[in-house]
């Protein structure tokens, strides 16, 4: 139930990200500045903390935990341990995050 309910906030966060993208791509640079200023209001900051940190991370952990059910791996007559599949997801998540941060110019 919690997973189903929190996905609505994740969906809302995705919509917000698309609005941010539209603002960033707008020919008028003023629009991006206004968007960023708007997002710095306390209510928005609270929303970002809850949506990104709590709900998105919660969804990620929940779905990674379920991944071995959706994507079981069998090598010959040996089944890959569910823990290995979950760990591989976390490794992939880390790699993708690092690449994204590198593209964003953080490093």
């Amino acid at each position, binding site marked *: 139930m919690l997973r*189903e309910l929190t996905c609505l906030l994740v969906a809302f966060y995705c919509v917000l990200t698309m609005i941010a993208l539209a603002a960033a791509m707008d020919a008028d640079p003023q629009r991006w500045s206004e968007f960023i200023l708007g997002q710095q209001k306390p209510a928005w900051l609270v929303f970002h903390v809850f949506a990104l940190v709590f709900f998105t991370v919660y969804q990620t952990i929940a779905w990674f935990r379920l991944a071995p*059910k959706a994507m*079981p791996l*069998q090598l010959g*007559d040996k089944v890959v341990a569910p823990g290995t599949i979950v760990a591989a997801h976390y490794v992939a998540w880390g790699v993708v995050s690092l690449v994204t941060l590198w593209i964003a110019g953080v490093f």
Partner: protein
Amino acid sequence: MSQAELRTRTLEIEVMRYDPEQDKEPHFRTYSVPCQEDWAILDALNYIKENLDSTLSYRWSCHMMVCGSCGMMINGEPSLTCKVFVRDLPDNVRVEPLANFPIERDLVVVLDDVMGKLQNAQTYIIRQDPPPADDVEYKQSPAELMKFKQYTMCINCMVCYAACPQYNLDPEFTGPAVMALAHRYNLDSRDQGRSERLDILGDHDGVWNCSFVGACSEVCPKHVDPAAAIQQMKIEASGQWVLQKLLPGRKS
């Protein structure tokens, strides 16, 4: 231990009764049943039938979790009545017919809906190639058998349907057991009907109606994992959809 040495405990068992020819709606009747500590709740129902009220209707056959006939709601939880032991229950027990199904009489439910869906899902081996010669077998390695063996354990008890919140909301949903059985044949190396089954089940009433709550897998008395089967079918159906868009006319 002899029968006489077994302790008895009297359970107050509330049983849902419904006679469609006499009752406007289902109601409960309570029976005091002196249960032996090694009894399953099915034994208590048999005691009621034999000693207290011969009009009680319910399905059962094997008493050992093989036939799948005796699924009911016990204190609100769907289970086989031969699997739930009196020693694990409080003094007051409520027995109802399986949730999410129409009641035929007392604890007997109408299973026509699921039987129709089972037929529709083509849960049998489909071959496109001509069959081998009479003296040639379909060979299958242990690794190939391992892929689907757990799904062969389904005994069609329909306990998973009683647990499924999605089937409760939308009776058009194909549901857990039928899709687990369809997936069993999709994974079978002898089968060539995967694409046909995905065409039937890869829609809203099929795999996409499942929100992966997982209640079906939790209640399964045979430890089948229908929720996993449905998620795997979602991936297969997505792959087939992409392939059909990229290569129209191609069957995966």
